Each structure stands twice: as structure tokens, then as C-alpha cells.
């Protein structure tokens, strides 16, 4: 394997890890506030559909992005209503949201576009197009012939869509918000010991709704990325289990923002390698089942959860509705 192939695989890793990263951080906000969210998948899917559909109708990817975020926020609102206001089972609510999104996206897509549950393919201003850094080479042949440093600059760093850079910025922002602001301290506290937060005179319900809303926004961006940047348009079930891989990454990262970055990039690498069986065969000298790589995140999560490689301890009040004592 030459250097350029390595760079190409890393480039694909970045592109595939971004939706995982955004969804993982979304889950991080929600679960750190004590609200389990297995509906990340559904929120991403809904956002993917609405951003592609509205972008295609209005011709502007920005309006599409807003529509995607709005759709994801709506589902977050349902989740909040069920799990915060009505103190229902958060896991069941998440399951319902996943199915709601899976069914509604196809239903609406068929009703609006009649193309068998997909949106028209997007082009030009309807998509988030690659941003080329100054001086970066753009064609594959040019990059291949350039020096290694130039290859890294042109192929790996340059040429991603805006959302990729936004997602990468979200990591330090999440860290800062959680660990360096009053809001973050309270948010983490509400996931560990809501009664103490309540005693301090801070609204548990308000904080949890805020966390669920942030989760909705991030899932919205993740979904928009899928249909307007990674691919050009929505297809049925396009989130393809990414919400669950993000959930796995969240456990892998033990609910910490920087570790979320590492975990999602590791899982992104698996996905990138799954697309290049030729490279794996050349490197380790034997054929590896593509499905095995695809399944690796799930297997690793089970192993981590089992506590064989360090223990993953979730926020203590996670999954428990808060009942104020009367």
C-alpha cells in the first residue's frame, strides 16, 4: 500500500466519521443530563430527509439545513415530552421515535416526490460542496504526483464540506460548554444527582429540555450532512444504523467529548476499510469479511460494556425520570 492510498483511506475516514461524531456528541449532551436517547438514529434520518427535501424545493442548502434541524428538534420535543414531562420510559420513547422517522420519511417522500421514497438528487447550491483550501490540488492525478506533505494538505485537510469543519469545532466547544461554564456544570449535575440541582433552586426540567434540544440540533446537522454533503439526496433508511454506532461510540468514549472524537474516528476508519477490501487484503495478506469490520463497533461496545477493557459507567441518574418530592 502506498502513501496515497493511506491518505485516501484517512480522507474517507473523516467523511464517514463526521455524522457519527455529531450524533455521538448529541447523545453526550442528552445522556449527561440524564436522558437516555436511543432515538439518535431516527432524528438523523428525519433531518436527512427534510434537509434534502427542502433544499431541493427551495434550491438553498441553508434553508434545507434549518428544516432538517427543525425536524430533529420536533422529535426531540416528543422525546422530552414523553421522558421529562410525562415521566415515561425513555428507551421506549426512543424506539418509537426511530420507527416514526423510518416510516414518516418514506411516506412523505413518496407523497411529495413520488420517486419510491427518495428525494430528487441535489446539485450546486442545494448541497454543501467541498471547500478547497488555497493552493490545494484538486484532481486525483495531480495529488498522486505531489509530495507527501502536499498530499496530506490537498486530500486529507482540504476538500471537505463546511459541515465537516463545523463538526470538528463542535468537539472543543462541547468540552468548553460542559466543563468550563456554569450551564455545563449544572447539566452534568442534573445527570448525576437531579435532587441536588433542584435543591439549589435550578430547574431540572428546564435543564433537561435544554440538553434534549441541543441533542436535537446536533442530530439535525448530522442528518443534513448525510443527505446534502456526504451524498446528494435522501434515500430510504440512509442513516443505516449510524445512530446506534454513535451510541456505541458514546459508551466507548465513556461520555467524554474528546474521547468521542477518537471513538467515532476509529469507527469511521472501520467503515472506510469496509469499502476497501482490496487494501486490507494487500496489507494483512488474507481476506477479511467486510461484515466483520462493519460489526466490529458493536462487538467492541459489548466488550467495553462487559467491563473487560476498562469500565464504562454511565451518568448515575440516566434513564430515571425526576419526581419532585411533595
Amino acid at each position, binding site marked *: 500500500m502506498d502513501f496515497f492510498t493511506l491518505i485516501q483511506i484517512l480522507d474517507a475516514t473523516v467523511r464517514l466519521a463526521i455524522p457519527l461524531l455529531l450524533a455521538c456528541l448529541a447523545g453526550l449532551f442528552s445522556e449527561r443530563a440524564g436522558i437516555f436517547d436511543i432515538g439518535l438514529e431516527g432524528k438523523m434520518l428525519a433531518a436527512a430527509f427534510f434537509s434534502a427535501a427542502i433544499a431541493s424545493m427551495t434550491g438553498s442548502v441553508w434553508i434545507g439545513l434549518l428544516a432538517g434541524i427543525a425536524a430533529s428538534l420536533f422529535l426531540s420535543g416528543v422525546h422530552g415530552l414523553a421522558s421529562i414531562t410525562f415521566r*415515561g420510559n425513555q428507551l421506549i420513547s426512543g424506539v418509537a421515535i426511530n*420507527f416514526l422517522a423510518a*416510516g414518516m420519511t418514506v411516506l412523505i417522500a413518496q407523497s411529495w416526490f413520488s420517486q419510491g421514497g427518495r428525494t430528487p438528487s441535489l446539485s450546486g447550491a442545494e448541497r454543501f460542496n467541498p471547500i478547497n483550501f488555497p493552493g490545494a490540488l484538486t484532481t486525483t492525478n495531480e495529488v498522486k504526483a505531489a509530495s507527501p506533505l502536499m498530499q496530506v494538505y490537498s486530500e486529507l485537510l482540504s476538500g471537505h464540506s463546511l459541515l465537516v469543519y463545523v463538526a470538528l469545532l463542535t468537539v472543543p466547544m462541547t468540552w468548553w460548554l460542559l466543563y468550563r461554564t456554569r450551564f455545563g456544570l449544572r447539566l452534568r449535575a442534573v445527570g448525576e444527582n437531579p435532587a441536588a440541582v433542584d435543591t439549589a433552586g435550578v430547574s431540572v426540567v428546564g435543564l433537561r429540555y435544554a440538553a434534549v434540544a441541543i441533542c436535537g440540533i446536533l442530530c439535525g446537522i448530522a442528518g443534513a450532512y448525510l443527505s446534502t454533503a456526504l451524498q446528494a439526496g435522501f434515500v430510504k433508511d440512509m442513516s443505516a444504523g449510524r445512530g446506534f454506532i454513535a451510541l456505541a461510540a458514546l459508551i466507548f468514549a465513556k461520555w467524554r467529548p474528546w474521547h468521542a472524537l477518537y471513538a467515532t474516528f476509529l469507527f469511521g476508519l472501520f467503515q472506510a476499510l469496509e469499502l476497501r477490501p482490496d487494501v486490507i487484503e494487500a496489507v494483512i495478506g488474507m481476506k477479511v469479511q467486510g461484515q466483520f469490520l462493519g460489526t466490529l463497533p458493536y462487538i467492541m461496545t459489548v466488550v467495553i*460494556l462487559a*467491563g473487560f477493557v476498562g469500565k464504562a459507567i454511565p451518568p448515575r441518574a440516566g434513564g430515571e425520570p425526576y419526581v419532585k418530592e411533595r
Partner: protein
Amino acid sequence: MDVMPKWAEVVLVPLISLLLAAILSGLVILAIGEDPIAALKLMIDGALGSTYGWGYTLYYATNFMFTGLAVSVAFHARLFNIGGEGQAMLGGLGVALACLFIPWPHWSLGLLGAIVLAGAFGAVWAAVPAYLQAKRGSHIVITTIMFNFIAAAVLNYMLVNVLRPKGAMDPATARFPEAVHLPSLHDILAPIGINFSKAAPANVSLLVAIIACVLVWLLIWRTKLGYEIRAYGHSESAAKYAGISPVKITMIAMIISGALAGMMAINNVMGEAERLVLNATEGAGFIGIAVALMGRSHPLGVFIAAILFGFLYQGGAELALWTSIPRELIVVIQALVILFTGALDNMVRMPLERIFLALRKEGN
């Protein structure tokens, strides 16, 4: 202590939740520019209007009875088994191995063997998450979700690389031998003079599912083990104090749950397809969640809810065939049922409790 009378708890709350789900589904149909009343008529016609329709409705209902019971048993121990889908896939593998590699002299023996193997495969697939929950504290919801994906990969591998007959293109096993062909409802009902549709896939597994409903009822409400499962589900600390082992209950409840989900395969794999194909479960494992919630985890409730979902499934297929409403409508209805009967349960319950409280005060 109970604010509401029992009939309200058992009948009124689920009925109102269902009504809300139905109204919203109707609005969804309206919003995509179709007539909900006409759609409902078409569904009833297609699913219940002929023995052919009934045959499909009951075929789907059989699947959902098994998966619904599976989720229910786990619910009684306050365990949420989302892994029914993966356990049913593994059950399919068990059925395929039983039918392909053991020369059964008669279908009845084959069915028994298939039940044992399907149950065992499903149980093993549930036992690993159960063990990790009981011994290592790993959250069973997350592990069972992960096991669904792992099961799909295992099945894919087995079908593509191991069980596929030489020269065949599609990832599926060979056809099962004629000896293990299960009698359909047509074969069963013909001797007593009922002419049931020959083409419909409903088969003798329906009877097995009904027996399973009765057995689960006996287990949960008439045995010491069932009492222990329910006690553990109500209060872990009280159960512990009473000498009930959490590890034992978690393991047993999940093993029974997994076995029930796995047994679904005798219907869809052995009874209908008569070979194991990819995605044979078609999401029935997840519908089990909706069925269990709607049936309030009671076998009778599960039985009724399974038939209702069987009707929705077959009716939805008819809709997709005759109108421009896609099959995904069922997924939406399923989501709304889960949402209203499961997650938003308190939204219905809280105002009702207030009404009953007010009525009681007036009565005094």
C-alpha cells in the same frame, strides 16, 4: 392506593391510547392526500374479507405472538429486551439446521425438533446480554441492540459462505425436505368441513403460538418462578430481601424471552418460506415491543394485540398494492402505538386519575 378501578386500568387506558394513535394515523393518511375511511375499508376487506386475507393476518399474528410474548416475559422482570429481532434471526438458523441436517420421519417430530433448536438458539443469543447484565452490570438495552446487529452479520455470513447451496446465487439455504412441510390451516380445517384458503401461509405454528400464550400465562401467574419474576420486576430490593437471586431471575427471564423470540422461526422459516433467507424476520422482533406494550404484557392482551397487528400488516400490504400509500404506513402506526401506549402512557393516565379522584370525592 389505586386511584382507578381495575377495568379502567386494563381497558380504558389502552383503549384511549390506541384511539389517539388511530386518530393520528388517520391524520397522517389525510396529510398525504388519501382518504382514511376508504383506506380502513380497504384494509378490512383485504385482511379480513376472505379466508385468504385471514390466512395472512393469522400468519403475521403468529410471528407477533411469539415476539410479543418474548418482550412481555422480559418486561415482567423489568428487563427491556430489544433483541427479539436478533434472537428470531438466530432461531431461524436453528430451524434451518434442524430441517436440513436431521432426516425427520414425520413433520410433527420435525416441528418438535425445530422448536427445541430454534428456542435454544434464541435463548443463547439472549443469555449473553443477560449474563453481562446480571454479572457485569452492562445495560441490557444497549447490549441487545448490539446483538441485533451482530446477529444480522452472523446470519449474513452463514448464508453467503456456509449454508448456500453450490451454484446458487441468492444468499439462502436449500429448500427444506418435503418431510418437514408443516400442514397449513387449509390442511387442518378441511377435515372439519371448513374450506380455508390454500394459498395463505398460516399454518400449524399458530396453534403452537396459542399454546405458548397459555403456557406463559401459567408460568407468570401460576408458578413460583413466575411469582419471583414479577416480584423482581416490581421491586428489586424487596425481591432480594425475600431471597430471590437477581442473577437467577435475570438469566431465566431473558432465556425464556429469547427462546420465545427464537421460536418465531418455526412460523416464518419452517412454515412459510421453507428455507432460510436473509431478513426473514422482517422486523417482527421490533413489532413484539408494540404488541407487548399494547397487550399490557398479559398473554391474552398479547394474543389480541398480535392479531390486530397481523391485521395492520396484511391490510397495509393491501393498501400498498391498491393505492399509492406505501407499506411504511404500518411502521408509522407501529411507532404511534409504541409512543402512546408505552412512552406517553402517563399523558393518558394522569388526567384520567384526576377524573376518577374527583368522582370518588363526590361519592363520599
